[in-house]
Each structure stands twice: as structure tokens, then as C-alpha cells.
């Protein structure tokens, strides 16, 4: 597999690994300070940009799936005690005898996209079961189909070369990591949550409450246990225990019977802590609880019993034991009623509370990244699959019991015949969850919506940005700043710039460039290793030694497992083993001095990043190693294996001293940063010189870079997406960054290098508007294409009738009628034809008798020759004509013909189209100016864009100015310049180039006015800046209406452009008109032009009649005609329906 990956990326990455950076090539001497950045492309080569998704999914299908099946391996029957069915193995995509690399996928991903199918592979299980008296092993039983994550190790694209990818119509630059369900690409976003199975201590200073809580999460259940203070006494709280239980009682129930031992476990010999805690003993004594039995009974009384039907009733003491054993701190399993581990855990929680009561600074920070875990696609899928698998087995069992109950059976019972019936449940369950995003898990009573999102294919960057996005579980509506703030611990893990503006600000984050998200590692070997390294097992340790001075607890995944008196040595030894590869590289270990604890974390979902190891004030990575990397001898993993580089998670980072540059390394330094620009993510990496910009500008650009029109993928012309924006002539930026090369934005760019003059021109450039050069537009600047998909399905009906395509209709001359001009003889639009508003591109007809019954009655034969089909064509409606780009005809899953017509528009920039540079400086086109009116310089160069200089002072986007100077130097020099964050081409060098080429050092040129021909009195900042065209175009937004459709209920004009709605005169506008006193205008706008309605009002009863007749008074004498808004009439009638009679009293106005 490893070789496969190597092959796949080689084409694209080769030139990345040996770029001639700063004029340096392979043969040049290597300088570690400058060349260590080569580790980054090497890292991305093994990891890729979306490796977190792929790793997580691979772990799920290869490891987790087998674990789930093992945990639910047996299906037994309540009826027949002899029967069993046992799952032996589970595989995705290949049969037991087949090569695991040959994945059985029915259709390649692109075909799935086009044909609205799900990209999936069969799930095979091997089962062993009894048939009669025989035990039968059946292999390769298909229980459903698993959606495949693209580019995972179960995907057909895994390990393909660029050529093979082309053959499969796939883009080699596409990152993968998403699913294709029913033809749409779906991403399961990374979810951020508070870490599970860890103690979090919080304090509320106002209420004087300290609480330690732990969310226990196992395969079976999720529950939260609290240890809280109440009036300075400590209690244990849990959802299934009706009231708080004094902590001493809990500890007694868990087997710590002696008060001395309780004190030893909680406080050690610290008298301050003992004083704080002592009051809790009184509490227990007051309640008369002294023994374990009493304590268990006490707890048993408080337990909320929700028993299943016909379960045996338990005694109080049993309830208590049950609560301690399985309800409290559920992630610790109790064997043989040995509660010691759990008791110690509760004691530790209590100790943390006591410590915090003493010193309120010892609370944990919920927003600290080290206390967070990221949940990825694999974890979510495994939750879902386990639920479905359990349901599957349950259904199977029910079915079995039903059949086995029947006393006599003709033939021998074969369970397999009944297992296949439900096989659709797993498939549809998985598909539905991914396509709707609703994760409903019965076990946890979890109902989560919006887990999946449609992969945004607006631009390459938007798709890439989506793969690195992290969404928080935190509610958007709550007004707290903590979770939204930029945490110092995010450094290097989460991008500091890329977050949306508005309500999700700070809650939606993005991964930085060089991060890895861990998957679960086995605990047992690590625990054994701890003991081998000299730590003492906690279960055999004496309680009194636990908190003695100098003793450190060793916590494995948050649980105290051992103690050591030599924490530094222990940690060093452990790290040594990790660096030599004896322990997984992703296990983190760090010391917490405040808690006297050594924490080892091996759980999944931690973010970590690689750093260079520094020993004795020297970086372990030397020029030698980098040379090996450059000539391809070494890969990134070799650095790991040789202990030169290691992964640190946030907690361990906190325990290290990391130097940013090699010059900062001194004796105490433990690590060295690989490259500082990795604090940014993939999207923020596009910005040139971001370290010179005001920080919100970088954030704005991160949002806008995703809206830029450009190239999307190499297969962009093969795709049929609902909406696709492409640029005709995209260019790679003159000023690029190393990130741009790494994510290969230069191969799929979204923008053009525009020559910009920063000056005032006409008055049409105020408020960030841009002046565009008409000739530039004529020559293709900003030209883009819009592709829109239209789908038609030819349905089949139960009565055997079906939709058909009618041919084109012709007039007397044999010419097609105007509406059918674009059609071919088959009734489908012909590729290349222009369709105008009102013309038809799919001439579909539906049967008139579709709703008639299947059994053709006699009346059907009575009129056989009536017209059987009615036209229901697809008509093009848009202000501008389109061209038919592609017509696809296929068959969907349910055998109905599927027709997709792709319509194309080519658009040149026009007034009001939106553009933006890469510095969060957006603007609309304010005027398009003839080339001869444009200013020009000595060489006769005129700008493509004129930008108003007022855009600079308040925005402080110095990076944009630097981009211009570097770009200009690059143009003159014939080179591409770098604007990499914290680096890039230096301004002095750029100025030098400018001067050498005969330009002013500042980038300012003397320009001549194009209109008068005279010199401009100021020097103009003039040069290329990379401009992006954003998807917001006037053509999609323009809207006006004189008259048009009205809503049915209120008879008021409809709302919105899509419904040809009216433009609302709103409340504030109304206020203006009232203030102005234009009452007749108001009357016209609010009633006559909206929903005027003539009613007959009876002047005697005040109610409305009709046709000049009052039905209440039975008279027509007092009827008066008047005009009121229809909405008012509606209100009156609704009130009447509620037994309220609104009576109109009419009087003369004048």
C-alpha cells in the first residue's frame, strides 16, 4: 500500500520536492535553517491535505468495523437454545478469497456522480451458525453496501497514477475524503467536542461552586458524572441518581470503607486539604452510613430505576452495586466487583475539587485545544454502523424467533434464508444518514442534524477548505466569547485566520497546514509499558503513598493507572521509546506539575503536529538528512523512525520549549519548528505577505477565496453539477507562496494577474468600486462561464404507462417551430444549440392516465383513441440565452430514464460584477472605460483595473502593496516571486530589480492621462495584482417588476427574484413617506399597487356582504362599495371565524 501511495503522488510531488527555490537547486549547498521547510512537502506527500478524513475512514473500515462485529458477534434465539449465529469476520469491498486490494466497486466514482448513484462497496461477513445439528460456516455473505470515501484504501482511486486517474475521469488534484451518495458529493465535517473520559474541573466564583465532571463514553452508552460542591461539602451527581450523594458515601460504597483511607486517597497528608475535606465525613456520619453495605443501600435508594419490562426486581444493595459498577464513570469497566479503580478515580475527581476549592486557579479551561477532541467521519460512521448492525441483528433475531416458534416445520431451518431479507436496512440507513446529515442513534438517544454537507465545488479552494473545516458543537446563538476567541493553544494546529464572519465566527475553524488527527491506539500495551518502565500499578499500591510528596501519578487516557517517584526519568524513557518507534508516534506524554501527574494520551481525535527534535541545543535534523530527503532517499517517515522529528499534541507542546528559528535554539530548547507559515491553513496560505496585513483582512480573504471563480478540477468539463462557475483564462498568481505550490493552487488557479493603477479616476470608483479597461475585457479578462444542470426523469407509472419524449414540432415549411428550435428529432436539445427564454430543451410528455388504476376497467376500453400524453416540456427561462453544453441520458437506480441537460453561459465582466484581490479588498465594477481613455506609462502599458487609493488607509493591507511591487519585479524579471507568510521575497530585492529595469524603486510610475494626454501630477502606484472574480454577478441578481404573479392567500405580490416578486416598500420607507406627508403615494403603494379589493360593506351591521347584498341583514339597501386591502378583508374573515365580529363603521371623510 505504501508503494501505491508513493506512486500516486510522485507525478505531482516530484517537482515540489525539488523546486528551485530562491535560485537554489539540488546541487547547491544545503542550509538547515532555510531548507528544513522541505519537510513540509514531504509531510504532505505522506499525509496529504485531507489525510485526517482518510485515516479515520480507513481505521473505521479496517479496524473499528471488526471490533463492532466482535462486540456483537452472536445472535441467539430466545426460543431455540441450540441455535446460534456467530460473525467470524467482516470485510468491505472484497471476498474472503480475493485480493484485499481488488475492491469490488460496481461503478467508478465519476459514473456515480453522473448517474445519481451511491459510490459504495459490498460489506461481506463470514458467519457460523447451526442448521439442525450441523454447524455451518458461510463465507462472503453480503449484508449491505458501505459508502466509500474517495481516495480511502477501499476506493478504486487509491494508488492510481495520474494517467489512470484520467482514464477514470477523475482529477488527480482532487483531495478526496468525501462520499458520493445519490450523485451528490457529501462531506462529513470534522466535529469538535470536549474530550471524553477526562476530568474537567470548573468553578463558578459567584455561586462558589466547584465541580469536576467527566463524560464517560463507551460503545454502549454515554453518561456524565459530576463531583460538585454544595455549601462547601462535596457530593457526587449523576443523571440516573435522583439526588446528590455525599462523596464519602460513594467512596464507601466503592469499597474505601475506612475514613483514613478516604482521607489518604483524597488529600494525602496535606493538612490544608484535610481541613477542607473533613466536613464531608460528618455528612456521612450524620446519615448513619459507616459500612460499604450501608453505603450501597443508601445509593440504591437514590437510583432512578428505569427497568425494562419483565426484568427481575433488584434489591437495594443490588441496585447500589449496579450503579457503582456500571452507571457511574461508565468508561471504567468493573470486573469481579473490584471497585478499587473506580474508587480511586472518584477520589481523584474529589481531590481535584478540593484542590480547586483551595486554589481557584486550578480550574481547567474548556476552550483549551488540549481539552478538545475532533470527531471525524470514521467515528461517526462507526457509531451509525453499530446502531444499524444491532438493529439488523435484532430484526434477524425477531424473525428467527417468529419462525422457530412455529412447532412444525416442513424442512430443516436455515437461518441464512432469513438474514438476507433485511439486507437493505444497512445500505439505506447509511445512505440516508449521509445524504440527509441526520445522525440518529437509538443507543445514545442522539439526534444530530447537519452532520454532512454538500461538498462546495465553487472553486478548488472552496472544496479544499471544506475538507479542513472543523465545526463546533457549541450553539451559535449563545453570546459568549470564550469558545469563539483565538486560543493561544491553537498555534500551529488550527488556522489563525480562516474562520467565517458573523454568527459562526470562531466556532467554525480550519486545520492548519501541517496537522494530524490521531486515531485510537490500544491502551493495554501502553499500560504494560508503564509498568515495565518502573511505574507501580495503582491497584496494588498503598493508598497512603498515592499523594506523598514527590510521587507522580501516571494517568493513561485520564485514568490513574500507576505511580512513579521518578517522573522525569519515566517521561524521558517513554519518549525515548516513542522516538525509536517502540510506541506509536501519536501517543503523547507530558507532565503536569500542578497535579503531580504524568499524562499519557493514546485516544483518537487529538490534533498533533510534527516538530524537529532538538537535543543539547542542536537540531537533530542536519543538512545531511535534508540532502537525503531532497534526492529522494528518505521520506518523511524516515525522519520519524530515526527519531529526528516527532508528533506533539497540544498538551505535550505545553510541556516543551519550541524554538521558532534555528538561531533561537539554546540548551533548554526541546523542539524546533519546521516552518512558521504552517500556523496558517490551506486557504489562508493563498494570501501573499499576510504577515503585513491587518488580521481581519486575512479572514475576509479566507471567506472570499472560496467564492472566486476559476478552475475547479481537471475533470471540470466532464462534470454535470447543479451550478458550476469556471473562468475562461485563469492564471497562476505572479506572487505565489509555498502553500500555493503545496496545495497546487498554481495548477487550478482562480483569478488573473491584473495590471492595477492605484489612482482616482472618474467618480465611478468611490466606495471600493473598480474601473475596468474595456479592451482588457474584450481580450478575455474576467471572462467566465456558468454551467447549470437541469434534470428530467422519465417516470414509469404503476399502470404501465410512462413518460415519453416527443419529437420536435414543425411548421408548414418543415422548419421547427420557434419553441423547438434547439431540439433535435429525438426531442432532446442538441449540443451547441442556443436556447432563449421560452424555448424548450427537453420535450417531455407525461401520460394523462397516470393516476388510473392498474387494472384496466371496462371504461378504459370504451375510449381507446383519446390522447394519451400531455406536454410537460422543460422550458428555458432566463433573461440571457444559454447554450446546450452536454446532454446526458442514463438510467438511475430504479430503472427510470434520467436526462441531464447542462446549459452554458459565457459572461464577460459587466457593471456591478464583483472582484477582489487576495487581501479581503472586494469591490464591484463601477465603470468600464475605453482603453484610449485609460492612463498609460512610458511603455504604453495601460491598467486593466484602476483602484481607488482610499481603499488603503483604513484597511491597512500593506501586503497588497508588497504584492504589487513583487509582482511588478517578477514581470520585469521574468520570474515568479514569493509572498510566503513570515518570509517571501524581500522588498529591498524587489526594489533593486525595479531600479535595474529602469523603474522607480517604489513601484510608482509617471503616467499620462489617456484623455488629455498630459502627465499626471502624481506618481501612480502601478503594477500587477492578482484579482479574483467572485461568483456574485449582476446577471444572476438583476430584478425588476411592473406587474406579475401574486400570492394566492393574500393576493399581494410574491416575494423574491425567483418568483418574479415585487420590490417591497418596507416599514422604514413607509415611515419616510408618512413623514413627508405623501398620503396618496402611500395609498397607491400599499394598497392600489398591492392587494386592492372591492368589498360590499353593510352600513347597518358593519359586516361584509357580496354582490350588493348583505346576508346578515338580508337587504341590499345599505350596502356601500369600498376598496380595502385584501389582507384586511382576510383578517376580518379570520376574526369572524373565531367568533369575533369586526364591524366597519363608515362615515364621510369630508
Amino acid at each position, binding site marked *: 500500500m505504501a508503494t501505491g501511495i508513493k506512486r500516486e503522488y510522485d507525478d505531482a510531488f516530484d517537482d515540489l520536492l525539488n523546486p528551485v527555490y530562491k535560485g537554489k537547486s539540488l546541487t547547491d549547498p544545503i542550509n538547515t535553517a532555510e531548507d528544513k521547510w522541505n519537510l513540509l512537502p514531504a509531510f504532505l506527500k505522506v499525509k496529504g491535505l485531507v489525510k485526517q478524513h482518510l485515516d479515520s475512514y480507513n481505521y473505521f473500515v479496517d479496524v473499528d468495523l471488526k471490533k463492532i462485529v466482535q462486540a456483537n458477534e452472536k445472535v441467539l434465539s430466545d426460543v431455540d437454545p441450540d441455535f446460534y449465529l456467530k460473525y467470524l469476520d467482516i470485510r468491505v469491498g472484497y471476498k474472503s478469497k480475493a485480493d484485499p486490494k481488488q475492491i469490488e466497486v460496481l461503478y467508478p466514482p465519476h459514473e456515480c456522480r453522473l448517474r445519481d448513484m451511491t459510490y459504495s462497496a459490498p460489506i461481506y461477513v463470514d458467519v457460523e451458525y447451526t442448521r439442525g445439528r450441523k454447524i455451518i460456516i458461510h463465507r462472503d455473505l453480503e449484508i449491505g453496501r458501505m459508502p466509500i470515501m474517495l481516495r480511502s484504501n477501499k476506493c478504486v482511486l487509491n494508488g492510481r497514477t495520474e494517467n489512470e486517474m484520467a482514464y477514470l475521469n477523475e482529477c488527480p488534484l482532487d483531495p478526496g475524503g468525501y462520499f458520493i451518495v445519490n450523485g451528490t458529493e457529501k462531506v462529513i465535517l470534522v466535529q469538535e467536542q470536549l474530550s471524553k473520559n477526562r476530568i474537567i474541573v470548573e468553578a463558578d466564583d459567584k455561586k462558589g461552586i466547584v465541580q469536576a465532571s467527566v463524560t464517560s463514553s463507551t460503545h454502549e452508552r454515554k453518561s456524565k458524572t459530576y463531583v460538585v460542591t454544595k455549601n462547601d461539602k462535596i457530593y457526587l451527581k449523576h443523571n440516573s441518581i435522583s439526588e446528590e450523594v455525599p462523596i464519602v458515601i460513594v467512596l464507601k460504597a466503592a469499597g474505601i470503607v475506612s475514613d483514613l483511607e478516604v482521607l489518604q486517597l483524597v488529600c494525602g497528608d496535606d493538612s490544608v486539604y484535610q481541613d477542607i475535606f473533613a466536613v464531608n465525613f460528618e455528612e456521612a456520619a450524620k446519615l448513619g452510613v459507616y459500612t460499604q453495605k450501608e453505603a450501597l443501600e443508601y445509593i440504591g435508594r437514590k437510583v432512578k430505576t428505569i427497568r425494562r419490562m419483565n426484568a427481575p426486581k433488584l434489591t437495594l444493595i443490588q441496585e447500589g452495586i449496579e450503579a457503582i459498577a456500571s452507571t457511574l464513570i461508565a468508561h471504567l469497566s468493573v470486573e469481579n466487583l473490584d471497585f478499587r479503580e473506580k474508587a480511586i478515580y472518584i477520589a481523584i475527581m474529589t481531590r481535584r475539587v478540593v484542590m480547586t476549592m483551595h486554589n481557584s486557579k486550578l480550574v481547567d479551561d474548556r476552550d483549551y485545544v488540549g481539552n478538545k477532541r475532533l470527531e471525524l467521519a470514521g467515528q461517526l460512521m462507526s457509531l451509525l454502523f453499530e446502531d444499524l448492525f444491532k438493529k439488523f441483528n435484532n430484526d434477524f433475531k425477531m424473525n428467527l424467533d417468529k419462525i422457530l416458534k412455529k412447532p412444525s416445520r416442513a424442512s430443516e431451518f436455515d437461518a441464512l434464508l432469513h438474514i438476507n431479507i433485511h439486507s437493505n436496512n444497512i445500505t439505506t440507513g447509511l445512505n440516508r444518514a449521509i445524504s440527509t446529515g441526520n445522525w440518529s442513534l437509538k443507543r445514545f438517544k442522539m439526534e444530530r442534524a447537519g452532520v454532512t454537507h454538500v461538498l462546495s465545488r465553487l472553486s478548488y479552494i472552496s472544496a479544499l477548505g471544506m475538507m479542513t473545516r472543523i465545526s463546533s458543537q457549541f450553539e451559535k446563538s449563545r453570546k459568549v466569547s470564550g469558545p469563539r476567541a483565538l486560543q493561544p493553544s491553537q498555534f500551529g494546529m488550527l488556522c489563525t485566520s480562516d474562520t467565517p464572519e458573523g454568527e459562526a465566527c470562531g466556532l467554525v475553524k480550519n486545520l492548519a497546514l501541517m496537522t494530524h488527527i490521531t486515531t485510537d491506539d490500544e491502551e493495554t500495551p501502553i499500560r504494560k509499558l508503564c509498568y515495565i518502565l518502573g511505574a507501580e500499578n495503582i491497584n496494588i499500591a498503598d493508598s497512603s503513598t498515592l499523594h506523598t510528596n514527590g510521587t507522580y501519578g501516571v494517568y493513561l487516557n485520564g485514568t490513574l493507572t500507576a505511580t512513579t517517584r521518578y517522573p522525569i526519568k519515566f517521561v524521558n524513557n517513554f519518549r525515548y521509546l516513542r522516538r525509536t518507534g517502540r510506541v506509536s508516534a501519536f501517543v503523547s506524554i507530558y507532565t503536569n506539575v500542578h497535579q503531580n501527574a504524568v499524562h499519557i494520551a493514546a485516544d483518537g481525535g487529538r490534533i498533533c503536529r510534527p516538530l524537529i527534535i532538538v537535543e543539547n541545543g542542536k537540531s537533530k535534523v542536519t543538512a545531511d538528512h535534508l540532502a537525503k530527503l531532497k534526492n529522494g532517499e528518505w521520506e518523511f517517515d524516515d525522519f520519524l523512525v530515526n527519531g529526528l522529528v516527532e508528533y506533539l499534541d497540544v498538551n505535550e507542546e505545553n510541556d516543551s520549549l519550541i524554538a521558532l528559528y534555528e538561531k533561537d535554539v539554546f540548551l533548554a530548547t526541546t523542539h524546533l519548528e519546521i516552518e512558521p507559515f504552517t500556523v496558517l491553513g490551506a486557504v489562508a496560505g493563498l494570501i501573499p505577505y499576510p504577515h503585513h496585513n491587518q488580521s481581519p483582512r486575512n479572514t475576509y480573504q479566507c471567506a472570499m477565496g472560496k467564492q472566486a471563480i476559476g478552475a475547479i478540477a481537471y475533470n471540470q468539463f466532464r462534470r454535470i453539477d447543479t451550478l458550476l462557475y469556471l473562468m475562461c483564462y485563469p492564471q497562476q498568481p505572479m506572487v505565489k507562496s509555498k502553500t500555493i505550490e503545496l496545495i497546487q493552487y498554481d495548477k487550478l488557479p482562480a483569478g488573473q494577474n491584473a495590471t492595477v493603477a492605484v489612482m482616482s479616476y472618474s467618480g465611478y470608483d468611490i466606495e471600493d468600486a473598480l474601473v475596468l479597461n474595456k479592451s482588457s475585457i474584450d481580450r478575455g479578462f474576467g471572462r467566465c462561464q456558468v454551467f447549470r444542470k437541469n434534470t428530467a426523469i422519465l417516470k414509469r407509472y404503476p399502470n404501465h404507462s410512462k413518460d415519453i419524449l416527443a419529437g420536435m414540432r414543425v411548421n408548414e415549411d418543415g422548419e421547427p417551430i420557434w419553441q423547438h428550435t434547439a431540439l433535435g428529432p429525438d426531442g432532446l436539445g442538441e449540443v451547441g444549440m442556443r436556447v432563449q427564454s421560452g424555448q424548450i430543451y427537453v420535450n417531455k410528455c407525461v401520460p394523462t392516465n397516470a393516476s388510473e388504476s392498474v387494472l384496466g376497467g371496462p371504461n378504459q376500453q370504451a375510449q381507446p383513441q383519446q390522447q394519451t400524453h400531455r406536454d410537460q416540456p422543460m422550458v428555458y427561462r432566463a433573461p440571457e440565452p444559454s*447554450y446546450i453544453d452536454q446532454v446526458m441520458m442514463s438510467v438511475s437506480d430504479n430503472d427510470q430514464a434520467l436526462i441531464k441537460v447542462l446549459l452554458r453561459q459565457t459572461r464577460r465582466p459587466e457593471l456591478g460584477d464583483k472582484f477582489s484581490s487576495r487581501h479581503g479588498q472586494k469591490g464591484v465594477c463601477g465603470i468600464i472605460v475605453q482603453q484610449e481613455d485609460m492612463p498609460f506609462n512610458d511603455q504604453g502599458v495601460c491598467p486593466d483595473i484602476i483602484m481607488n487609493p482610499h481603499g488603503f488607509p483604513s484597511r491597512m493591507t500593506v501586503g497588497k502593496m508588497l504584492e504589487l511591487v513583487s509582482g511588478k519585479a517578477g514581470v520585469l524579471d521574468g520570474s515568479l516571486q514569493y509572498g510566503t507568510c513570515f518570509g517571501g521575497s524581500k522588498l529591498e530585492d524587489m526594489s533593486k530589480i525595479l531600479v535595474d529595469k*529602469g523603474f522607480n524603486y517604489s513601484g510608482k510610475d509617471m503616467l499620462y492621462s489617456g484623455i488629455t494626454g498630459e502627465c499626471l501630477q502624481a506618481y501612480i502606484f502601478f503594477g500587477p495584482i492578482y484579482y479574483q472574480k467572485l461568483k456574485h454577478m449582476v446577471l444572476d441578481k438583476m430584478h425588476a417588476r411592473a406587474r406579475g404573479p401574486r400570492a394566492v392567500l393574500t393576493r399581494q405580490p410574491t416575494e423574491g427574484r425567483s418568483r418574479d416578486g415585487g420590490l417591497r416598500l418596507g416599514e422604514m420607507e413607509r415611515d419616510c413617506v408618512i413623514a413627508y406627508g405623501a398620503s396618496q403615494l402611500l395609498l397607491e403603494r400599499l394598497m392600489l399597487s398591492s392587494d386592492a379589493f372591492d368589498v360590499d360593506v353593510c352600513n347597518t351591521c358593519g359586516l361584509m356582504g357580496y354582490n350588493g347584498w348583505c346576508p346578515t341583514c338580508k337587504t341590499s339597501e345599505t350596502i356601500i362599495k369600498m376598496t380595502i386591502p385584501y389582507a384586511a378583508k382576510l383578517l376580518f374573515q379570520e376574526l369572524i371565524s373565531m367568533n369575533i365580529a369586526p364591524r366597519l363603521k363608515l362615515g364621510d371623510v369630508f
Partner: protein
Amino acid sequence: MSNIVGIEHDRVTNTTSTDFPGYSPDSVGMDWDLEKFKKTFKLDIKYISERTANFDLIGIDTSISNAFRRIMIAEVPSVAAENVYIFNNTSVIQDEVLAHRIGLVPLKVDPDQLSWINKEADEKDKFTDDNTIVLSLDIACTKNPNANSNSTDPDNLYRNHKVYAKHLKFEPQGRQVELFANNPVIPCDPNILLAKLRPGQEISLRVHCILGIGSDHAKFSPVSTASYRLLPVINITKPIVGKDALEFKDCFPSGVIDINEKGEAFVKDARKDTVSREVLRHEQFDGKVKLGRRRDHFIFNIESTGAMPPEEIFFKSVRILRNKAEYLRSCPIGNLN
């Protein structure tokens, strides 16, 4: 006032000409006088090649020379593709984009051979042999049967896989057969890439090329660029000698400043200066040098797209300007003399 535009480190001064009557009390004799103009005006041709012309217009007002520039860019007519009729296009490039690319190909046609098209005319009678040039492009890509089997070079594997401007074939209509017998219509640059094909793909289309002007669409502009710059003036007010002189020399492009035998810097050829203002950055030259540009000395540079020789473009611009003046003169309001 002098006719030198002042180049200072942060601004440009004296940019507008003031030599017209009524500007100031002493501008009485500033009336434009043909005889005086004939005496002072000079046209100095530096070089003319097939595509570019470089010449100086000396002693002419900015407005006139700017008018020439503007007319050359926007109003000198030339021929370009206007309508593309696509019969078949199975390449990856879309019809509109292909048409756009064909439109931008400069064609070697004498615009005087064609007449203007009547925009109001019926679609059927709009195009005649008098006003339309027809080009056709029929190309299909095939596999090269003699290809080297282990080669991946498309040039070796396929035939006709690159569609160039030279593949546009002139189809003379009616009287054009004789008219263009000696100089058939061809693209000025034969190797402009229009599209790329792969075996099985083909393009078949007809192009109607008509007369147009640059202000309608940039494709009708006969020039790549037509612009001028003012002649630089370097005025050394205090002698610069020794090491400073060398440094002074380095502030300018080579050949602008030289050092005489006394070690004193002197201006050798100010025309070569690019006016980078580098010299104004150096403190030691403060007050020793004055930069400027002659306001009535225009160094024109015309780059033709290839349809017409550059000098002809200039002549046409003069003709068009004259016609405009003529028209203005015959206008009822402007008819003063």
C-alpha cells in the same frame, strides 16, 4: 513658462501647456500660426520596421499628439472575425471561447479593400463580397500511424492536435478572387494556438470577417499599443565629479550619463533615460541635478498587430483627425469662417 515638465521626487510639475491666447497677459502672440508651426514642427523618424515604428514629434501640442494616439488605438479601422458559424466542434474548448479566440487573431487584410457593413441590413444581404472576408477552419485530429510506440509526446502521437491560426483558410468570394489574388488573407501570426485536439475530435467552422474600429472591440484595433513618452531632460546644475560621478552614472540606464576626461559627469543621451527617478533618492545629488521632460517632444512608439504597416496606421490617424476637423468645420454651429 518653460515647456519642461518638472520631475520631482514626489510629484510632477508644470504638466499642462499654457501657450495659448488668453492664458496670461503675455500670451497675446500665442495664436496658432501655420507658418510658425511649419517652422518649428519637426518629425524625426528613429526607426521603422515591419511591426513597429518609433519616431519623434517635436513642437506639437499635447492635445494633437494625444489625438493621434487615441485614434490609432480606437478609430483606425481594421478587419477581424465577427461572426463564427460553427458546424461541428467536438473539442474541449467551447464554441464561444473558440470564437473569441478566432476573433482576436489579427488578419493581414488591407482594410481599404473592404467597405463598411450595413448593420441595419437584413441578415441575408448583410454580407457581400464587398464587405466580408470568409475564412474556414476544418480540421480533425487523427492518430499518427507511424508514431513511436513508447513516446508520450503528443506531437509524435497525433496529427493536427494543435489548431493554429494558420489553419484558417481564406475562401475568396465573388470578386475577391481577383482582388486578393496576389495577397490572400492570412493571419499575421500563423502560430497563434487556437485549440488543442485529440484523436476523434474535429472542428469545422466558417468565419465572417468585417471592418470595425477599436472602440467597438479591441480586436479591431490595428495596434498592439500606440503610445508616446515625453523626451527626458537631465539638467546637471552643479558639476558632479569623482566617485559621485560614477554613482550618478549608475542611477541611470547605461548610455545616458558618461564621464568626461575631467571625471565630470555629463549627459550623453537623455533620450535613453527611463526616468526612474533613482537619482533623486540619493542625498549627495540634492540640488545638483534637475530632471524634466520636454512637453512638446513626443517619442511615439507604434506597434502594429501586423495588418498594416505602423506608419500607415499613423497616416490613417492623421487622415481621420483631418476628416473630423473637416466635419466639425462643416457643422452649422462650428461653421464660423
